[in-house]
């Protein structure tokens, strides 16, 4: 649902940069977010396609750099990449873990423009 809002925000930022840096066509936009941050890249892509019509970003592709979910376990003193989060270390079963990566918010990293 919030993908609509996010798509609109991306387009506003693109528009700002287009005015400042005088480009007229956006070919692709590179975005990043943490894999646990509940962003649906498919819905975002769709929302973006719809809203980008008749703008400089029409037909631009969205590329995603999805940052891994990482936990740190205090028992085995290791950082581990996990698919889904649970406060138990998948290696040693230890319960003293913290989430150190994976909830990063959506960012625009760069654009390819003409």
């Amino acid at each position, binding site marked *: *649902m919030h993908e609509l809002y*996010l798509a609109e925000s991306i387009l506003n930022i693109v528009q700002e940069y287009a005015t400042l840096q005088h480009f007229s066509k956006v070919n692709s936009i590179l975005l990043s977010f943490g894999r646990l941050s*509940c962003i649906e890249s498919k819905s975002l892509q769709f929302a973006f396609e719809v809203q980008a019509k008749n703008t400089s970003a029409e037909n631009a592709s969205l590329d995603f750099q999805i940052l891994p979910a990482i936990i740190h376990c205090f028992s085995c003193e290791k950082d581990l990449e996990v698919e889904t*989060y649970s406060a138990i270390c998948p290696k040693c079963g230890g319960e003293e873990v913290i989430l150190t990566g994976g909830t990063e918010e*959506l960012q*625009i990293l760069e654009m390819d423009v003409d």
Partner: protein
Amino acid sequence: MKVSVVKNVLDANDRIAADNRELFDRNKVYVINLMSSPGAGKTSLVERTIMALRNKYKIGVIEGDIQDTYDADRIAKLNIPVVQINTGGACHIDGNMIREALPTFDLSKTDLLIVENVGNLVCPAEFKIGENVKIMLLSTPEGADKPAKYPLMFQESAALLINKIDLIPYVDFDLKKAKRDALSLHKDLKIFEVSCKTAAGLDAWTSWLTKRIDAFKK
């Protein structure tokens, strides 16, 4: 040609939230952003909190919950200024919706503004509104897997109220797991076990809140 940007997509919202925050600071208004799934007990908690603190603070409420159109009426019955935000079907409240709702309140005469966010565990955590604290409510019938499934919400909240604790004998809720997972996401998270039905545990919540508000107002 490549153009480097590196900018949060929600940057524009963050700026509006910061403007709201400035306005709240100037008027010494403490703002709570209350988040949970639909039906977890947000409106019930708002009612309970009003009853407990209304003699001490001037309270205002912004209702954003779209699940239940009676929420604003429930608050208005208590003679508390309340605005129902029309989120237009959106899954969250954003900074601008709050900004537009503010003229209804006399901020100079408001101590505490409670914002009941839209019932949703996914989106609201990403949208700042200018709050002092995010408070999260999790009710026992929802299950203990929520912290693991929606980590951001728990990371962003200052306190977690585990509500409907009176239903523990009837629902399959692993209290220990919920607390452990939540604390591993946010080690300073303050956890309260409460029931908005029986009022159990609510004194601890309101005294924690009172301390925070008083420290802010000083």
